[in-house]
C-alpha cells in the first residue's frame, strides 16, 4: 500500500513518461501525416511577408528537429502532467472514495481528459500549421486557457456536489451530478465567444479534420493513458494478479 506522497509522485513521473511516450508515438505515426499535408499547403502559398513563423528556407529549426522536438515536448508534458496528476490524486479526499486505487486513477484521468482536452477541443478545436492568424494568437490562447480553467472548475464542482448529495441513493445522485455537469458544460460552450479565426480557403477540410481527430486521439492517449498507467503502478491488486498469473502459468 502506497502511503507517502513521494512514492505517488515518482509513479506520476513514470506514468506520465509512459503515457507521453505513447502519445508521442501516436504523433509520429498519425498526427504527422496531416501536419505534413498542412505544411505543403503553407509552402504552396507564395512566401508571405510577415508570417512571423518559419517553416521554410530560413528556418530556425529543421523539419526533422521539429518532428523529434515535438515528440520530446509531448513526453515532457506527459511527465509534468503526471506530477500534477499524482499531487491531485494524493490530495483527493472525496474522489470515488469507495473504489479501488486503479478505478480512482482511471476516473481522474478520464475527468482530466474531459476538462483540459475534450472541452477545449469542442469549443476551440486545434488547427494544423497554415491556419492560425499570428495576430490573434494571444487572444486565442486566453480563450483556450479560460475554457481549460472552466473545465477544471466543473470537475472540482462535480466532486463537491457528489459529496454534498451523499445522502441520496446512488442512481439519483449520479443523475443529479451528470445533469449539473451537462448544464455547466452547456453554459461554458455558450458563454465563450466563437473562435476568432476563419479557416483559409486553401486548407482542405479533410486535412483539417484528420489533424483535429489525430490531435484528440493523442490527447486521449496522454490523459487516459496516464490514468491507466498510474492506476496500474499504485494499485496493490496489480502485483497480486500478476503473481496469480505466474502461479497459474507455472
Amino acid at each position, binding site marked *: 500500500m502506497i502511503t507517502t506522497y513521494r512514492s505517488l509522485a515518482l509513479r506520476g513521473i513514470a506514468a506520465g513518461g509512459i503515457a507521453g511516450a505513447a502519445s508521442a508515438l501516436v504523433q509520429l505515426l498519425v498526427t504527422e501525416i496531416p501536419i505534413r499535408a498542412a505544411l505543403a499547403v503553407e509552402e504552396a502559398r507564395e512566401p508571405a511577408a510577415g508570417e512571423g513563423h518559419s517553416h521554410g528556407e530560413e528556418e530556425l529549426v529543421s523539419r526533422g528537429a521539429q518532428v523529434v522536438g515535438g515528440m520530446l515536448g509531448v513526453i515532457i508534458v506527459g511527465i509534468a502532467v503526471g506530477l500534477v496528476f499524482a*499531487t491531485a490524486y494524493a490530495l483527493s479526499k472525496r474522489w470515488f472514495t469507495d473504489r479501488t486505487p486503479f478505478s480512482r486513477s482511471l476516473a481522474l484521468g478520464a475527468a482530466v481528459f474531459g476538462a483540459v482536452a475534450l472541452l477545449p477541443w469542442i469549443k476551440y478545436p486545434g488547427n494544423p500549421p497554415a491556419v492560425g492568424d499570428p495576430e490573434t494568437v494571444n487572444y486565442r490562447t486566453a480563450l483556450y486557457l479560460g475554457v481549460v480553467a472552466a473545465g477544471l472548475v466543473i470537475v472540482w464542482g462535480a466532486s463537491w456536489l457528489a459529496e454534498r448529495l451523499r445522502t441520496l441513493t446512488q442512481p439519483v445522485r449520479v443523475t443529479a451530478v451528470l445533469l449539473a455537469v451537462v448544464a455547466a458544460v452547456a453554459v461554458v460552450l455558450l458563454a465563450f465567444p466563437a473562435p476568432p479565426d476563419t479557416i483559409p480557403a486553401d486548407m482542405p477540410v479533410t486535412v483539417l479534420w484528420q489533424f483535429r481527430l489525430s490531435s484528440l486521439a493523442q490527447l486521449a492517449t496522454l490523459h487516459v493513458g496516464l490514468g491507466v498507467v498510474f492506476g496500474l503502478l499504485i494499485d496493490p491488486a496489480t502485483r497480486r494478479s500478476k503473481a496469480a498469473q505466474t502461479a497459474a502459468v507455472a
Partner: protein
Amino acid sequence: MTSPAAHLSAVRVPKWAFAVALLGLIVTYLVLQENGLALGASSELLHEFFHDGRHALGVPCH
C-alpha cells in the same frame, strides 16, 4: 454512503508537494505556451523546437 477508505487517510501530503505541482505546471507552460513572456528571445527557438507537439496537443499556435 462513502466512507474514506484506508488508503486515502494514509497519504500525508507535505507542503513541498505544491511546489512539485507548480513545477509541473511551469514546465507545461514552457513547452506549450511560451511565446516570449518568460524567456525573451530564446523562446522562439524553444517554440520552433516543440512546434509539432504544440499543434498536436491542440494548443493555439501562431
